[in-house]
Structures are given as C-alpha cells and as structure tokens.
C-alpha cells in the first residue's frame, strides 16, 4: 500500500529556515521556529552574560534574546538593518535568536542531511545537528537545545 502523497512528502523532506551568521549559512528546523521578527532595541539585563544581550516583549511574552555568534565561537557584531530575531521553541523554553539575516524557507530531501563529522570541540559540536547543501552552499543545521547547553557552558 502506498502512502498518500502529502504524507510521503512529509517523511521524505525537511523544511529549514535558512539564516546567516558571520557569512556562514545555517539552518533551523522550521518545526522549531515560531516566528521571525525585525530586530529592535533590546532591554539588557544587568549581570547577564554577553551571549544573552537582553530581553524583548514579543506580543506580551518576555523572551530572552540569545546571540548564537558567541556560542559558535564567532566574533560579536552589532545588529544591522538586515538582522532578525528568530523566535525558537524547543523542549520547555522559548528564546529569540539574534541572527545577521534570514534568507529563505526551503524543503530539502531528508537524505540530503548528513551527520556532523567528529569535532575536536565537543561543546561546539553539540550545538550543531548536521550538514546539508543548498544552491551549492554548505548549510550547518543548528540544534536549539544544543545552543542552550552551549550557552550554559559558555557562560
């Protein structure tokens, strides 16, 4: 018996939100993404680490903003006009990731996702879920739960 077409597509493809951080292309599973918002001034929280640059009020909900650049070992950079806040829900937390740009929502075949090669830096490797290629460019899949674990270690 064959699966209905929609179900077969669901099993065989993965939808990713493509974003850029310091020239590198990253992907987030669309299932983890709640919304994308324009970057706006953050309210810094005294005593918080640099990877948590502040909070925002997103439709009445207070969300912590996470700067993934620092957790991924990239240099910190001030937000630009292209910067976006990607609201991500995972397990029992919701956070807004500050990214340099959001590019597209794409569906990739499941088999196009490859596991991450063994890394020397185990802490950083935990923040990444896999690798893929899109339009000839390497896409690194971010793991939101891994980012939170990375944030704890980074702090």
């Amino acid at each position, binding site marked *: 018996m064959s699966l209905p077409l929609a179900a077969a597509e669901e099993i065989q493809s993965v939808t990713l939100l493509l974003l850029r951080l310091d020239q590198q292309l990253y992907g987030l599973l669309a299932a983890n993404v709640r919304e994308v918002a324009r970057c706006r001034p953050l*309210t*810094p*929280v*005294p*005593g*918080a*680490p640099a990877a*948590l640059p502040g*909070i*925002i*009020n997103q439709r*009445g909900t*207070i*969300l*912590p903003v*996470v700067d993934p650049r620092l957790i991924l070992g990239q240099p910190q950079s001030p937000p630009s006009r292209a910067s976006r806040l990607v609201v991500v829900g995972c397990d029992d*937390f919701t*956070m807004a990731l500050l990214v340099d740009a959001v590019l597209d929502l794409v569906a990739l075949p499941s088999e196009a996702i490859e596991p991450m090669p063994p890394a020397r830096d185990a802490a950083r490797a935990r923040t990444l879920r896999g690798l893929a290629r899109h339009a000839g460019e390497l896409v690194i899949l971010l793991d939101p739960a891994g980012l*939170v674990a990375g*944030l*704890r270690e980074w*702090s």
Partner: protein
Amino acid sequence: MLVVVRTANRRYAVRRTDLLGIRRADVARHEALRSAQPFASMALGALLEPLAASEIRPSQALLVSLRRRTIALLVERVEEFLEQPHVHPLPALLRNQLHQEWAVGILMHEDEPIIVLDLRAVARSVLLQRAGREHAETLVHAEIRDNNSEFAYAEPSLH
C-alpha cells in the same frame, strides 16, 4: 510598591521596601558627613551599564541600609511610584545564567520592559567592590613596602 528610576541610559524599577529613603544626592552626602554612620555611594548606571559612559551627573540618591552602613545609589531621576505593578518573572533561561543576581523580575510599563532590581543585592556588590579595592590597595601598599625594604637591604651591596 515599585519606584521607577532613570539612569543616564535606562529605566529600572526598585522595590520601595528595599529603600531607606530617597534624597537629593548632595543632601545625602551632607547628611552622611554629619552622621557617624559609614557611607558609600556609587552611580547606579556606572555599575549596571559599565560600557555606556555618561557625562550626566546623577542628582538623586536611593539610600539602602546594609550592615550598619548607608549605601547611596545615584540615579539621574526618580520618575514614578507604582502602587500595584504587575511584575513578570525573569525567563528561566536568563535567570539561570546571571553572574550577578541583581535582576529579580520584569515590569511591563508603557509597553516597555523595565528590569526590576534587588537594590539590596546591588548595594552588597558596591560594598564588596569597595572591600575588594581596599584589600587590593592594602596588598599594593604591602608590596611597595616589601620592595622598598628589599631595595634598602640590597643597596649596600651595590656600592
């Protein structure tokens, strides 16, 4: 009750129960000179936003009593008193990562999130900073004294 205050760059809210009083900064300094009680003061903005330097001189002092000392945390102005504010808890992800437990909640006021401070915790940090600086100065003086005595001891052999 919460008191909304402004530093040169931001607004914060503090609990009225944490405060011994609110004075003009010069009056607080004058009163401290007249009384025998130890007194320390620091601009709240300089402590909480060390990277955002400001030329504005804070004019109001939020007084906190701690360990028989009075600590004056200086702000640009006191803006509002809120009788029944609705304070949101800090998101858990943030609460667990704080290096300093100065922030205790978030007040949503005029669509703006305002950090609610534990001013007694802030005052404790001021005292610790002062104590650390005094301890460091004591160590530096001791080192200078030791170096001088070492030099004095070594001097005769140079001739």
